[in-house]
């Protein structure tokens, strides 16, 4: 773990790849919760907006050694803090401060109305976690009725990405405040993807809270992160007992 720990909060996630069935309920829940736009023809996957993309992995071997797995990939909310780049690779490069890591929570947020759409952050991210709005969003009648009111829609020409449902954090904080509390309890703030997973493959919480489930799982010997050698320090941990999956997580000479 890195980054500014003074707030004592660093939200992160652990995804158990061995449990993931590839049902994509998480991806759909995310799309619905965050008003992610879509088009009638989504065949061009390089123009689709999928804040939570599910990677398909296989070990490249024929039957009977063939194995496959599914790896959900939200934004990694990178915690990188090494000199001289103490910021995530994407926030560091934004010319207008439209994306920024909140050091109180560790979440990398974005301001759609400030984004100029230069796509430098998209180029900088090697996880492909960022998406550009190539078209204006259009929800067919009456789907606009089901838009989440807490999440602003994004127009054409701006970048967007997974926010870890930060609007749910805000809602949870507001509810806690009304009850006279400043601290959130475990489970009060949960992103839509984690809530929707039928296999309970996703765990979310404060990685710095040693009592939390997510912190314990992140320390498991089966835990790994994507592209660790790049020093991005992602806050999304994966679990797998399968060596071949762990080998696919990073480049090795």
């Amino acid at each position, binding site marked *: 773990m890195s980054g500014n720990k003074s707030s004592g909060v660093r939200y992160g996630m652990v995804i158990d790849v061995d449990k993931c069935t590839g049902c994509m309920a998480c991806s759909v829940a995310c799309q619905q919760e965050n008003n992610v736009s879509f088009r009638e023809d989504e065949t*061009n996957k*390089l*123009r*689709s907006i999928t804040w939570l993309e599910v*990677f398909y*992995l296989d070990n490249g071997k024929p039957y009977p050694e063939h194995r496959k797995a599914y790896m959900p990939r939200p934004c990694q909310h990178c915690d*990188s803090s090494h000199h*001289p*780049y103490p*910021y995530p*690779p994407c926030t*560091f*490069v*934004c*010319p*207008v*401060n*439209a994306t920024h890591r909140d050091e109180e929570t560790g979440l990398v947020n974005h301001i759609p109305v*400030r*984004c*100029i*759409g*230069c*796509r*430098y952050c*998209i*180029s*900088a*991210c*090697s*996880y*492909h976690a*960022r*998406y*550009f*709005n*190539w*078209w*204006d969003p259009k929800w067919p009648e009456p789907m606009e009725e089901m838009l989440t009111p807490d999440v602003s829609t994004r127009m*054409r*020409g*701006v*970048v967007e990405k997974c926010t870890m449902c930060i609007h749910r954090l805000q809602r949870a904080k507001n509810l806690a405040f009304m009850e006279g509390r400043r601290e959130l309890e475990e489970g009060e703030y949960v992103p839509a993807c984690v809530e929707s997973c039928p296999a309970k493959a996703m765990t979310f919480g404060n990685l710095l809270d040693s009592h939390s489930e997510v912190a314990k799982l992140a320390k498991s010997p089966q835990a790994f992160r*994507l*592209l660790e*050698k*790049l*020093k*991005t320090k992602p806050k999304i941990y994966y679990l797998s007992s399968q060596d071949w999956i762990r*080998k*696919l*997580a*990073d*480049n*090795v*000479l």
Partner: protein
Amino acid sequence: MDSALIPEGVKRCSFKVFCLWLLVILGVIGWGVLGGFMVLWKGLNVTGLNDSFGFGLYITADLAIIALGAGAFFTGFLTYVIGKKELKDIINLAVVVGFICYTGAQIVLLLEIGQPIRGWFSFWHPNVHSMLTEVIFCITCYTIVLTVEYIPLILENRQLDKVPEFHYFSHNLHEIMVVFAATGTFLSFFHQGSLGGLYGVMFARPFAFRAGFFIWPWTFFLFVASAIASGPALTILVCKMVQGVSRKQLVGREAISLLAKVTGYLLTFYLIFKFLDTWWWATQTAPKMGMSFTEFFQGPYGMWLLVAELGVCGVLPAIILLIPKAREDDVLLIVACVLNCTGIVINRFVFTIQNLALPVLPFEELQIYVPTWTEWAPTVGVLAYGALLLSLSYRYLPMFPRERELNPID
């Protein structure tokens, strides 16, 4: 018909022929404007860009154009700050070429960003850590400097010069041109460098990332060096082209020879450090990120690009330009300059396209980028815009101070 606007004592082609030429250029510009209009109206979905290729032809063209436009500031530096008087023959041309390059690049940038109306946000919400903020600031300021350097030339038009206020204004600007040349050198150094820094700081992209000095990755310095090595080469090429089309000698050979010598030395200097950087990146930086050197060259973006950039378009023109006899041969000089400029274009291409094409996650595949006509058209349109400005400047402005001396009219 327009003879009153043509500088005194020089010949130009007939107005009818000039208008025909303008029609051709305007046709190409029109095609470019149509492409640009489609992008602004329909959105960037009409281009070949996608979520793998956030940067594409527009950015490659921008970087190449700006690098090649470095001839303006460097020739200005040599002329006014170092005091190389023979370059006064060619400095006006260098300034016009620079002006074309920078304004043209900004026209393309207008199309490149998803929200052109918000382009000014970088001035209001600057990110001090971002190289792109620095680029936006310096390119804007340097375009202002280039405009100020271009204005005296425009005001020297035969008819405009008759207005006393314009005459005194342009004369006074000439007197303090060294201030603008020095300012331009400072600004240009930083933004040429920051354009390199754009790539070198991408620590999640092994192909582009470089170690460096303090906050500046080595690509910062390499981009400055490559820009000043190729900018004067473009100035030479444009001069040769104008001389070829007009069938006249317009500048003293000593100006071209000096620029050719300087380009040769600068290209050699750049290549030494580029080879060192490539070796360090291949043996140290990339392996630490888990990548082997050969993994960076896949599919159409193969090793041939590296050989072309550093060998055919690097070492070869450097050798030609370092040999005095070869520099004095016009054909060899033009070949060397063309190769030099091509090498820089390849360099900008590989950092933009090859960088993004390469998978970083082990289970991903190489992507291929194919630009559409809405990307080609504005890019070519900008070149036509350059031809338009150059044609108008050559016809109506005293761009070449020694033209009359070298081409006496009987």
